[in-house]
């Protein structure tokens, strides 16, 4: 149990970053399709099972892995050329290490932190590694010895100094508000509520939220700030000379960076793993009530999902009858989950069982919020055109920077006044 609970956040980090990449690629393509009145990839299948098209991203991944690794002969700095994608990948991956997935859990004497790296330096760690990710891009663009690649790298460089200041300053105002740099404590702060509004970062610091989300888009190199790879002007930007899994690492790094930024936005502004109004102790105390709520929710959603699936799964591929398989799976899984949860709701379960149950629920809440942010990232990408390079600069230096400074000033005044004259 001890080892399991220590390893759990590490495993979750790998799940949330690496394992979600095929799902994110699938989400990206299907959502893009639906937004543009298309269907998106839905035909790739294994013995007739398509999983709504996820098989396509597995096939894409396999293609990238098994493609020939070639090294363009004009490249002189082979070491930098090869190390660049790994820097981009590693820093995106390491960014994820400090995100808390659930509240600190106490079983008997032992206390376990649900962060892969149990440190209080959460925000600083994020800033350090998120900034480092751009070095992979710059190094890759420079080592490629290619005009388009170096143009992309230079755009990335200029963009970094444009947004990174505003991003740091918007975080500073959050630090002043929460009075801590530990991400876990920030989440517990957000379980309070002012009158009827939960004290989520998005409600108490709307300007910092907007600035941080905008700069997070720039930091992950996603539309509308993806000038570094602007395929309409500079072929593919910094990864023009990369192929096979070297390109794949850049590609995966982009999605992991997106997941990491999303996770930080969830933690800072959307209440992290907590439900509004309810802190962990409330959840543990009303565990049975909570389980009945989840059972009803699970029943309703699975019935709705089943109906939706049977309506839309029209064309069967050769092989297994897909609709039948999914219907069996959904009904079977729902029945299993409901029986399991009713057992725990009816039986007088022990304190530690309740704590673990609440922890699992918090994982689920975090996942739902994270995937909502993934959806927002994708949704924005397929709505907005790319900002011109000088517009990004202007936005960063002329608008976001002064705005975040003003925001810090106001926050500081309110916090100091609250501390000295409040109560």
């Amino acid at each position: 149990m001890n080892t399991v609970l220590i390893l759990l956040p590490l495993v979750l980090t790998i799940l949330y970053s690496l394992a979600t990449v095929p799902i994110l690629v699938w989400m990206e393509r299907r959502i893009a399709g639906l937004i543009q009145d298309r269907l998106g990839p839905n035909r790739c299948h294994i013995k007739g099972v398509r999983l709504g098209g996820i098989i396509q991203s597995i096939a894409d991944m396999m293609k990238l892995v098994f493609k020939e690794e070639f090294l363009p002969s004009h490249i002189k700095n082979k070491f930098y050329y090869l190390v660049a994608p790994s820097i981009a990948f590693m820093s995106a991956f390491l960014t994820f290490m400090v995100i808390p997935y659930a509240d600190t859990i106490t079983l008997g004497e032992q206390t376990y932190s649900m962060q892969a790296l149990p440190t209080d330096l959460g925000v600083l760690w994020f800033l350090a590694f998120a900034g480092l990710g751009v070095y992979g891009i710059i190094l890759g663009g420079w080592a490629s010895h290619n005009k388009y690649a170096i143009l992309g790298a230079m755009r990335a460089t200029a963009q970094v100094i444009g947004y990174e200041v505003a991003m740091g300053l918007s975080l500073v105002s959050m630090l002043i508000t929460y009075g801590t740099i530990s991400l876990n404590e920030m989440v517990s702060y957000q379980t309070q509520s002012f009158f009827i509004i939960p004290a989520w970062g998005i409600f108490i610091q709307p300007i910092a939220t907007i600035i941080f989300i905008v700069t997070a888009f720039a930091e992950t190199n996603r539309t509308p700030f993806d000038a570094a790879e602007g395929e309409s002007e500079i072929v593919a930007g910094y990864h023009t000379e990369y192929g096979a899994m070297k390109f794949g690492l850049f590609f995966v790094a982009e999605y992991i960076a997106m997941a990491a930024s999303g996770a930080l936005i969830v933690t800072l502004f959307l209440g992290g793993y907590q439900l509004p109004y309810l802190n962990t102790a409330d959840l543990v105390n009303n565990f049975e009530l909570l389980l009945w709520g989840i059972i009803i929710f699970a029943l309703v959603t699975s019935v709705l999902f089943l109906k939706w699936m049977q309506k839309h799964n029209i064309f069967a591929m050769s092989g297994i009858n897909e609709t039948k398989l999914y219907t069996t799976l959904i009904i079977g899984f729902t029945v299993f989950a409901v029986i399991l949860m009713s057992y725990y709701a009816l039986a007088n379960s022990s304190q530690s069982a309740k704590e673990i149950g609440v922890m699992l629920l918090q994982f689920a809440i975090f996942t739902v919020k994270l995937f909502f942010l993934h959806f927002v990232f994708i949704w924005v990408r397929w709505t907005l055109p790319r900002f011109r390079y000088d517009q990004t600069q202007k936005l960063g230096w002329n608008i976001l920077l002064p705005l975040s400074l003003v925001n810090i000033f106001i926050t500081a005044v309110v916090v100091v006044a609250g501390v000295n004259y409040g109560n």
Partner: protein
Amino acid sequence: MGTRIVERHGNTFKEKIYLPAIFSGMKSTLKHFTDNLSDASNIPTLCYPEQKPTDITPRYRGVHRLTHRKEDDSIACVACFMCATACPAKCIEIVAAEREDGVDEKMPKVFNIDLLECVFCGYCVEACPCDAIRMDSGIYSVIGDKREDFIYNKAKLLSIKGISKEEYSLAK
């Protein structure tokens, strides 16, 4: 001629802070997304092998066919080589023979179209003086295992049915 003043956009405060325009754009894309997610049947995408296109008209240039005469159902072609001459891809091979049954003077003994070379330009149809070759079959997909499968001979071309109302050759 007066000068028309074109109104420049993007200078008001509302437009400069971007966010209202961004949110209205996101609202529009979200509407498309939710509409299509709740009812995918409105999406015009064809799931091809299961759904076939329904908008193929007689004017669609599909696989060629050779027409028949209305009087006796025999071949309408008189082997004049006009189509083979007009063909930019040189994919039509004709060997002429004398017609013994008295309906006409000449007919093709061999009439081969190599569909792998054909560019489906329709010049052969326009060149034909006897309305003997047409492309109104509506066939858009030709499948074969080997190269020979794509060379359509006289019997094959005569057997293809058209999708237009005029089944026979209109030539007098």
